[in-house]
C-alpha cells in the first residue's frame, strides 16, 4: 500500500509513520529536524491555514461533478502556448477548448468574452462561476457568442448543442 512516500526516505522522524521503527542507529539530527518540521507544520496550521470560506467552496464544488456532460479540454492558452508580446499593454487571452468534433474558441478581454463554435452552430451557453447558475448566452447560427462582463475568478462555459451538453475545463480568467 501507499506508504505515504516516507517509507524509504532517511527516517522521516516526525512521528507520522505510525510507529514504524527505524532500524540501526538512532539519528539525533534527523530526530531534531523531524520535530522542527513538525513544529513548522503546526505554525503553518495556526498562521497560514486554508481560509474557511475557501474550504467551504471546495466542499460545494462537488455539485460541479457532472458525468453527463462532456468535458471540452483546454488545448491552447495564449498565456502559456503563445510567444509573449513584450510591451503590448492589453493582450487578449486566447483559449481553445476541444472535445470530439467540437471546438470552442474564446477570447477574454477587459470588456468580456467573445467566442466562436466550430463547426458553426447555434447553442445555448451558460457562463459558470461556481456551483450556482451563471449568465445565459446564445451562440447564433454562425456559432458566435459574446458576453460583456469579464468573468472574475474561475469560469467555465456550459454549452447545449442539440442533445449534447459540453462543459469547458475550469479556468481562471
Amino acid at each position, binding site marked *: 500500500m501507499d506508504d*505515504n512516500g516516507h517509507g524509504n526516505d532517511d527516517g522521516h522522524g516526525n*512521528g507520522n509513520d505510525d510507529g514504524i521503527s527505524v532500524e540501526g542507529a538512532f539519528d539525533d*539530527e534527523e*530526530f531534531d529536524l523531524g520535530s522542527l518540521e513538525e513544529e513548522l507544520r503546526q505554525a503553518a496550521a495556526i*498562521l497560514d491555514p486554508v481560509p474557511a470560506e475557501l474550504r467551504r467552496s471546495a466542499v460545494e464544488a462537488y455539485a460541479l*461533478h457532472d458525468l453527463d456532460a462532456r468535458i471540452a479540454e483546454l488545448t491552447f492558452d495564449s498565456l502559456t502556448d503563445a510567444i509573449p508580446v513584450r510591451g503590448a499593454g492589453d493582450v487578449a487571452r486566447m483559449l481553445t477548448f476541444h472535445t470530439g468534433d467540437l471546438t470552442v474558441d474564446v477570447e477574454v478581454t477587459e470588456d468580456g468574452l467573445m467566442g466562436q463554435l466550430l463547426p458553426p452552430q447555434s447553442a445555448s451557453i451558460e457562463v459558470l462561476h461556481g456551483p450556482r447558475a451563471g449568465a445565459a448566452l446564445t451562440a447564433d447560427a454562425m456559432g458566435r457568442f459574446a458576453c460583456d462582463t469579464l468573468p472574475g475568478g474561475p469560469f467555465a462555459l456550459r454549452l447545449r448543442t442539440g442533445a449534447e451538453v459540453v462543459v469547458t475545463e475550469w479556468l481562471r480568467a
Partner: protein
Amino acid sequence: MRSERAPVTAYDDRPYTRGGAVDRSDVGALVQSAVDGDTAAWKALVEGLSPLVWSVVRSHRLSDADGSEVYQTVWFRFAQHLGRIREPDKAGSWLAITARNECLKVIKSLRRLTPTDDPQLLDRASEDRTPEESVLDSEEAAAQSERVRFLWQEFEALGDRCRQLLRVLIASPPPSYQEVSAALGIAVGSIGPMRQRCLRRLRARLDARGAL
C-alpha cells in the same frame, strides 16, 4: 523515534493534523465513492487534501486574491474531472500538479502585465495578520505564540527554494514525496536531501537568534 502521541507543543491538541486526516491509502477509494455520489467521501477528500493545495498556492507566493482563485479553480476542475481521473489513488498528485500549473500561469500573467516586480508577490507576512494571529494575540498563550511567530519569521526569511519546498512539505497531513514532486516539479529523489539541508538551515537561523 518519538511515539505518535508524544506532545511537542501546546498545540498538539489542535485538529491540524491527524484528527480527521485522510490516510493517503484511502484516497483512491474516496474518489471512487465520490464518483458514486457519496458527499461524505468528497468532504473527506477536501478535508485531507485541501491543505496540500493551499500549501502549493502559498509556496508560489501568490497574493491572497490570486491564491484564492487558483485554489478554487483547482477544486472546481477536480470535481469536473472526478471519475475521469486515470489514477484515483494519486488524486493528491493530480491536485498538486494542477495547482502548480495554475500558479505558474498566474505568475506568467503578472509578469506580462507588469514588467517590474509585482508588489503582490512581495512578502506580506510581516505586515498582515491573519485572523488566527489576532486570535492568538488575544489569548493568554503569549509566549507560545511568540515562539510560533519567531519560527515563522525565520522560515519566511529562508531562501526561495527552501521556503518553497518546506511550505509544501508542512501541509497537514504531510504530503507524500510524490505529491511534493508534483507540486514543485522536482525529482522525488532530491526531496529528502533538500529537505534536510533546508531544515538544517532553518535550525541554524533559529540557533543564531537564540530561539527554540
